[in-house]
């Protein structure tokens, strides 16, 4: 068992800065949970509070059902891995991994057993006699993980451990960390600002902003059902298009949305499963933000035929062919939108093209509260 429960946790600094506000979370045993958000959103502070390195101003923290607010960090049975890991340059990999245990006066035989076991899990047995200078970036990262693994902790706390690696290595380490979690079969709490890392690694994701938890859910659910504009635009790459100043109207028992600007706009009927929701009806006659994911805007003939009622004209501002897909940067009136389309598209910069969108997958947001109104 290695569950972590946080109840109404606050972190307030002496200067009046509130880093974390009313944080509530149940991390289940053996779960891989990700805290994600832009820098300064309080995710690392939350992690440090779990570790005991930061005092909890208010609220309760339980590890394995035991109240841990006042338990010293060393007694919490956790291990931490950071972005700026420093390996001891003159020590071998074996010595690097065993150093922490030596400081804790762990018996020599036990150290040997644990280091060898961790090395086997990380597949670095052949590197144990090497010094850090003779290791690649990925191998060094594995040694840093090894230093945490040898402690046999109940919970691993990882604070942006891949941020210092180049893009290729980061992708490789992402999948290695996922496999490692399966092999170790223990609880991982992972902090990152990178939404791709969050989406690919976590069983659940906590999205944070300004010290406040925005939404907790599975990657797929966050992507499909964001509760507010922040989550909608933070999760997904390219991010969700937001057409501001869109207006909702009603005619013949249906809801219509007009987007674009005064000179160039389009009015389409929203599917009733979205347009007739009570919260949406409350916004009739008001402005809303229309959110459309780039992959739900299409210029392909088949979609133009299938969704003729959602067709509108846009100007191609830029074309970005990426091989497997092409990103079209469109201007709808004076608003920008991105469409991810088939690479066979013939659209060129400056073209006026017809596009359509999957209207049943759009989201509507209140411009004032930024909350999603079609959930």
């Amino acid at each position: 068992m290695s569950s972590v429960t946080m109840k109404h946790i606050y972190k307030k600094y002496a200067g009046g800065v509130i880093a974390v506000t009313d944080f509530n979370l149940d991390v289940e045993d053996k779960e891989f949970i990700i805290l994600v958000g832009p820098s300064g959103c309080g995710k690392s502070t939350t992690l440090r509070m779990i570790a005991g390195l930061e005092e909890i101003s208010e609220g309760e923290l339980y590890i394995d059902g035991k109240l841990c607010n006042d338990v010293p960090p060393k007694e919490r049975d956790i291990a931490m891995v950071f972005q700026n890991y420093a390996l001891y340059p003159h020590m071998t990999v074996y010595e690097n991994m065993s150093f922490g245990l030596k400081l804790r006066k762990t018996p020599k035989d036990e150290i040997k057993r644990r280091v060898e076991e961790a090395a086997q899990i990380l597949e670095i047995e052949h590197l144990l006699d090497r010094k850090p200078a003779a290791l690649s970036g990925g191998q060094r990262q594995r040694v840093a993980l090894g230093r945490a693994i040898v402690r046999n902790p109940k919970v691993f706390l990882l604070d942006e451990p891949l941020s210092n690696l180049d893009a290729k290595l980061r992708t490789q380490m992402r999948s290695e960390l996922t496999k490692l979690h399966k092999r170790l079969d223990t609880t991982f709490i992972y902090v990152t600002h990178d939404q791709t890392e969050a989406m690919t690694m976590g069983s659940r994701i906590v999205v944070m902003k300004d010290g406040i938890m925005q939404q907790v859910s599975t990657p797929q659910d966050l992507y499909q059902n964001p509760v507010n504009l922040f989550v909608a635009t933070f999760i997904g790459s390219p991010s969700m298009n937001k057409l501001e100043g869109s207006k909702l109207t009603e005619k013949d028992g249906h809801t219509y949305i007009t987007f674009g600007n005064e000179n160039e706009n389009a009015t389409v009927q929203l599917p009733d499963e979205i347009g007739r929701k009570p919260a949406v009806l409350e916004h009739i006659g008001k402005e809303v933000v229309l959110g459309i994911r780039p992959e739900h805007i299409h210029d392909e003939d088949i979609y133009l035929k299938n969704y003729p009622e959602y067709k509108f004209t846009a100007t191609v501002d830029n074309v970005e062919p990426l091989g497997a897909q092409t990103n079209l940067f469109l201007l709808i009136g004076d608003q920008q939108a991105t469409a991810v389309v088939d690479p066979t598209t013939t659209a060129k910069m400056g073209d006026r093209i017809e596009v359509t969108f999957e209207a049943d997958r759009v989201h509507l947001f209140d411009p004032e509260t930024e909350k999603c109104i079609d959930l």
Partner: protein
Amino acid sequence: MSSRMFQSVIMQMKEASNRLIGVIDGEGNVIAASEPSGLGDRWEDAAHRLNSANEMVTVTGGKTFKALTNWSARFDYAVFVDGEDDLAKSLCIMACVALNGAKTNYEEKHDRATFVKNIITDNILPGDIYIHAKELHFVTDVPRAVFLIRQVDKVDVAAMDVLQNMFAEKQQDFVISVNETDIVLVRQVQPGSDGKELQSVAKAIEETLKSELFIKTVIGIGTVANHIRELADSYKEAQTAIEVGKVFDTEKSVINYENLGLGRLIYQLPTTLCEIFLSEVFKKNSIDSLDQETLYTINKFFENNLNVSETSRKLFVHRNTLVYRLEKIKKITGLDLREFDHAIIFKVALMVKKYLDSREGPVRLG
């Protein structure tokens, strides 16, 4: 370390025993011995055994070894005595005691780290700095950064071990314990090193100490000293950075003296001047008449660049509610925070108040 010093002690011990006694360095080279014929031999296997051994004495190759004490996980010097019997063991332990004493004495006089410690703590005359630097072959005019690492909440003596091993290059980096909570790292840096690089070193220190020992630290960084005589100033700046950070940047754990901004200015003001300033700004009412919620609103308004819509969104209140609160603040203080000039006065006043509170406990003015 001078091998002559070891040789002198070993020769004195030779008078008490016929056994071969000597000293090897971290690489296994025999640097002192009671029989001069063995000098210069290299015993790599013995060095390897000593590094991986946990026992008090190590017996290998017909000899008994014991490492001299040091901060590092690896040994620097070890005593050896010919033989594997109890007498060899006893002689080895006794020689170790004698050599440790001699080593400590020698280090106090000649050790580079002690020399650096004396410089940063102003415990050496300026004229003597040059003489000692020459004696110790110490390069005087290379850029060096001073990091002051302060353990907060809880102190762990092993922090010194961790730092000694992180910065093991003894010719360039010096890790010095200055008191119970503070450790200083004087690190040679590349010419033109910027704050970003120093920040990254400090972050690595902070995160390594956190992950190895679960200790929380605050790290102050002084300006890069281009000459050895500037190290003392850099150390004082690192101390100031921590002190100023404690007042104005309570949530920061790494504070660079070069980035203290307004805080540095205010920190150097006489308190009477600060009190006069606060009385002048808050003529109508005291700053203390603003409650916590109002102060929180003001801070959020500043954080969001005086943008009413953005701030109201962050505070989860209606725009008009925020406008009402700002009007209320104007009524109390006479300052309209939507105006840049008033906002900057208020911002400075809040910092001045923080400073005064930190000096003498909360002050009531106005």
